[in-house]
């Protein structure tokens, strides 16, 4: 720990978000396994749980954690490979937070809007759209 400087928080958040995303990944591998080794119907039942309002709110935490971990990871790599970057630790940490929030707001909107009956998703509305 670094006694309350930005480094302490960036380090702590990196660990917490990393463990959170890992936990989701393990759950996600199990729920995807339903599709191959159980049945499509059971998979669709599980999907209905993922589409409820409560799980949508939980997935907001997942999105925030992924974005923070990604941008803070870039900060760590910058400092590792470009030693002069340490002079901008505080600015870079603020940059990480700004990017996380800037990415989170629009993505979170798409995830939460269906709770209120809006479907801003995709060119086909809430129909599946494949690239």
């Amino acid at each position: 720990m670094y006694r309350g400087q930005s480094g302490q928080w960036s380090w702590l958040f990196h660990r917490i978000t990393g463990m959170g995303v890992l936990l989701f990944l393990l759950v996600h591998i199990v729920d995807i396994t339903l599709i191959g080794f159980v049945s499509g119907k059971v998979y669709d039942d599980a999907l209905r749980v993922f589409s409820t309002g409560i799980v949508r709110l939980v997935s907001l935490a997942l999105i925030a954690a992924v974005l923070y971990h990604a941008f803070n990871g870039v900060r760590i790599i910058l400092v590792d490979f470009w030693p002069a970057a340490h002079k901008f630790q505080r600015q870079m940490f603020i940059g990480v937070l700004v990017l996380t929030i800037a990415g989170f707001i629009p993505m979170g909107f798409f995830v939460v809007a269906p709770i209120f009956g809006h479907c801003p998703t995709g060119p086909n509305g809430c129909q599946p759209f494949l690239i």
Partner: protein
Amino acid sequence: MATTQQEASPQVRRKPRLVAAYGSSSKPTSGGWETFSWYFLRVSGVALIFLVIIHLLLMHVINDVSATTYCFVVARYQNPFWRAYDLLLLTLALPHGLNGLRIITDDYLHSRGWRLVVQSGLFLSLLFFWLMGSMTIITFQPTPGVCPTTHTAMVSR
């Protein structure tokens, strides 16, 4: 005995000293497993930024999560590109996460025995979850007659 030697030559005595280190950790140079682990976390991390964020956009923004149904997956997995994409995502994300957790356990487990138990458990879960995920991605075959057969049927539905 060591104490008397230190007292005899006080200039050799090592005082605890704070060393300024920037970043999460200094670059390892041993060339062994820990060096590989250090580089793997960073290289896989850079790839995962793109792989994970594109995956999130596809499954939670471009498509609503409620639309990623069984038939959605059937249509998607007709294209081997997405199977390869998902396999790469799994193969990078799972060891990245579990190796990160191993490094966290290094900080909190001080006895060799507990480390051995916990880290062996992490390694076994890596094998278990990777096999589970990759077998699903590679071997998945749709049940005939459940979903529209073509890609376009799915999109225009």
